[in-house]
């Protein structure tokens, strides 16, 4: 897959996810209308309208504030702010990061993203935003302290590829929609308790409503209960495939796969969880910040729930690019 195919596939994916999201909102609202408000004459689909309205507004709001929310949640600080208060040795590190980001922005032919540092001793990094023009790149303090210039370049190139391939946009949209789905499912569950009486009187009026209505009701309940989990799994699946691609196109930017391979080895050996990065933004990171064991192997179960492919496989793939693959890693 080359860059343009990746971008095209990400655009398709974006539309598909949006479509599925709107379909889900309809299902949610329609079920609410049918079972709790009753479909009488002069029927106004108030539940559908509320679901669509609230869902869209909540998703749009999260889409435009998602990057700021992630940066805030990880206590990331803008690099310019750090530079102002840093001492001599510190300034060198910060300047190096700025230079490396500039270099990779030039290599990718993109505007320079905003750069942040997360105060966490575990080495990790992530990118977020709505696309190349509104992108932010954050690295942890631990990453700055652990990696040398070449390795840092590899990591920044990996994140820059996520930005260039529009992965960050897909991720931000997915995160926004997952949030909206969770919110609405929660409301619907509460609504069921509140509207339980309404449902019984509705059944009486229509004399049972027929088997079709019961099946739809079951589907609806299942959809509400499963939606947050399915949405989360979707986010994970999108992310795992993208990691290999970002590794490869990052190596294409630096023309030095070994830099990133060595960086991944160092990040892997510092296996402590990244405290500042919570579950919600795990899929954005270069390495799983939670240090979960399912990311260590590949298989159907890990394929469903792990946010990152196994580190050993990624390192192996990068070494193969550098014609340095070893049979036993």
């Amino acid at each position: 897959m080359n860059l343009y195919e990746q971008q095209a596939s990400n655009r398709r994916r974006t539309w598909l996810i949006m479509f599925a999201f709107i379909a889900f909102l309809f299902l949610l609202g329609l079920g609410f209308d049918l079972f709790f408000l009753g479909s009488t004459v002069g029927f106004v689909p108030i539940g559908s309208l509320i679901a669509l309205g609230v869902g869209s507004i909540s998703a749009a709001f999260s889409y435009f504030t998602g990057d700021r929310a992630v940066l805030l949640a990880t206590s990331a600080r803008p690099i310019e702010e750090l530079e102002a208060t840093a001492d001599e040795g510190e300034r060198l590190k910060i300047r190096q990061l700025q230079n490396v980001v500039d270099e990779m922005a030039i290599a990718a032919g993109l505007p320079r993203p905003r750069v942040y540092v997360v105060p966490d001793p575990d080495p990790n990094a992530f990118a977020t935003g709505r696309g190349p023009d509104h992108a932010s790149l954050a690295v942890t303090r631990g990453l700055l302290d652990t990696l040398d210039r070449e390795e840092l370049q590899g990591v920044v190139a990996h994140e820059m590829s996520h930005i260039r391939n529009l992965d960050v946009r897909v991720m931000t949209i997915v995160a926004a929609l997952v949030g909206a789905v969770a919110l609405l499912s929660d409301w619907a569950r509460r609504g069921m308790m509140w509207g339980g009486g309404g449902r019984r009187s509705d059944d009486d009026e229509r004399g049972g409503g027929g088997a079709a209505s019961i099946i739809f009701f079951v589907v609806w309940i299942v959809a509400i209960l499963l939606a947050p989990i399915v949405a989360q799994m979707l986010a994970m699946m999108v992310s795992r495939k993208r990691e290999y691609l970002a590794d490869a196109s990052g190596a294409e930017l630096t023309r030095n796969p070994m830099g990133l391979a060595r960086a991944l080895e160092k990040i892997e050996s510092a296996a402590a969880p990244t405290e500042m990065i919570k579950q919600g933004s795990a899929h954005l990171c270069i390495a799983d910040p939670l240090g979960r064991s399912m990311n260590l192997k590949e298989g159907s179960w890990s394929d469903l729930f792990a946010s990152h492919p196994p580190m050993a496989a990624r390192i192996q793939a990068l070494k193969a690019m550098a014609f340095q693959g070893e049979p036993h890693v």
Partner: protein
Amino acid sequence: MFVLVFLGIIVALVVWVIASYNGLVGLRNQVQNGWRQIDVQLKRRHDLIPNLVNAVRGSMDFERDTLTAVMEARAKALTATGPADAAQKEGQLSQALGRLIAVAENYPTLKSNDNVRMLQEELTGTENKVGFARQFYNDIATKFNTAQQVFPTNIMAGSLGFKPAELFEITDDKERDVPTVDLSRH
């Protein structure tokens, strides 16, 4: 019927010419933009060099040759015109700078000086930026040239006034042997 088919072919041809022309114009603009990026980075490098030379001059008095070589290469690079000429002169400048950094490594007072280390970082950064700007330019220029040369676009590219872009490449074999200086691991 025949007239309709004939008209159809004409329309298809016109659409094809317009599409190829616009595609080539887009690529040509990207190539020009890529070249300007290189220019920006080269200028940054030229501005940085006097600072670096001043910072190390005091400690490296007897390495005057190395310093003069850098300043001379810089002066020459300032007069470069066009990708091929610039590539050659900038290559020589890179070489002179590489030697200066390699020599500076031998002076402990320089290595431990924060100012000098910061300047070295700036220089490494600038060298890399020049390199990556060149990589980006060459990639996009190659794409532009390929788009002109593939059949059937090659039939009309020339007559529409498109010329292949010059690549920014190292022509002198000696320059390929620039000593690689790794500043990242002190």
